[in-house]
């Protein structure tokens, strides 16, 4: 199946039980899904299980996908992220050091293929750069929230700060990233 087939068409094929579409859909997204999950769970065996379950969920709930609310990739990655967070919560794993996640993000990927990514490489680098430029405490709060699913309350406890401070850090980081992305889009 050609890469010209849209993500939405492949997802429709997956929902309909088309084996070729399912294979193409999996091939197109598996590196991103597995990479994200591995970033969160930090264990290859668990990451493989969670990534697999992500595609099962995509197949099962493909009918609920609404293109008006976002791209197929972000819909799928959100499923992956939430499943991965569920797993680390159920396992009561010690929270991964957010700085470890930041370092992984900065390394980028050997498997990254510019042709099959939603954002062009330079834009991904800008996002990564924007994360790096955040003050350390905001960066840690953002990573704990966005990748590790920690609530503001939990972040406050982990970082030894008041709830209000944790909320402010999350908010400041998100607003800075939004401004950074808007500036990128205006260039």
């Amino acid at each position, binding site marked *: 199946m050609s890469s010209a087939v849209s993500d939405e068409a492949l997802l429709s094929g997956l929902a309909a039980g088309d084996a070729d579409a399912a294979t193409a859909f999996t091939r197109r997204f598996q590196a991103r899904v597995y990479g994200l999950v591995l970033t969160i769970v930090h264990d290859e065996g668990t990451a493989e299980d969670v990534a697999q379950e992500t595609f099962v969920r995509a197949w099962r709930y493909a009918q609920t996908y609404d293109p008006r609310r976002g791209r197929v990739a972000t819909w799928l990655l959100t499923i992956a992220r939430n499943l991965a967070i569920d797993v680390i919560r159920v396992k009561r794993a010690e929270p991964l050091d957010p700085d470890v996640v930041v370092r992984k993000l900065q390394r980028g*990927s050997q498997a990254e293929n510019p042709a099959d990514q939603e954002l062009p490489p330079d834009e991904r680098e800008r996002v990564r750069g924007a994360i790096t430029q955040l003050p350390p405490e905001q960066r840690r709060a953002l990573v704990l929230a966005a990748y590790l699913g920690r609530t503001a309350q939990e972040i406050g406890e982990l970082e030894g700060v008041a709830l209000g401070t944790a909320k402010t850090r999350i908010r400041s980081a998100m607003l800075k990233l939004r401004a950074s*992305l808007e500036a990128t889009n205006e260039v």
Partner: protein
Amino acid sequence: MRCDEVRDLAPELALGIADGEQRAEALRHLSGCADCRRAVEQLTQVADELLTVAPAQEPPAGFETHVARAIGLAERPARRPRARRLRLRWLALRVGPALATAAVTAAAMVGVYRDDHQTAERYRATLAEANGHSFQAETLTDGTGARSGVAFGYEGSPSWLLLTVDRSHRDAVTRGELRTKDGRTIPLRSLHLDAQGSWGGAIPVKLYEVASVRLLGQGPGDVLQASF
């Protein structure tokens, strides 16, 4: 909830980390406030972009085949899946309907499946209620590998097992035992299947020490086994 309160909460809504009550209040507000909805949507885009910059990495060989099998688009292997995978599917099967319902609601404003987080919280709270650490299910199979029931295990203080044996096998079961990972064999002396083929009880070891539970009959081939 007022506009300023929703705006304060917007980053947490976008990241899917707002607590359930606040989230519900905010969603009610968003359903009637286009400005706040737009503000949350902008931040949701930021949260989405964050996920796309995680480093891509190819999974192990055979991944797409495993996916195809899991969704019934390829022939299933004769060999039973690894326990880890079964546990995940078991969890998914039981929480799936609740997740689906919650996710459809959540999707209205800030994306699909954000309520997975709450499901995990509920699962953790359930375990915490009885000081448990995990709950899992494993398939009981007979000597041919055919499914013959399910062994549910709970790790806590104490750990316990609940066994359900299919009708076709239950009459043959006369006793049971645990095999531990360090090679011990521990008889399940209180094992007695009821009319529905079920038995449950505390076990004298931690669940994580259990390698398998075996249900035995009179003949040498009458063995049903579930591996943990």
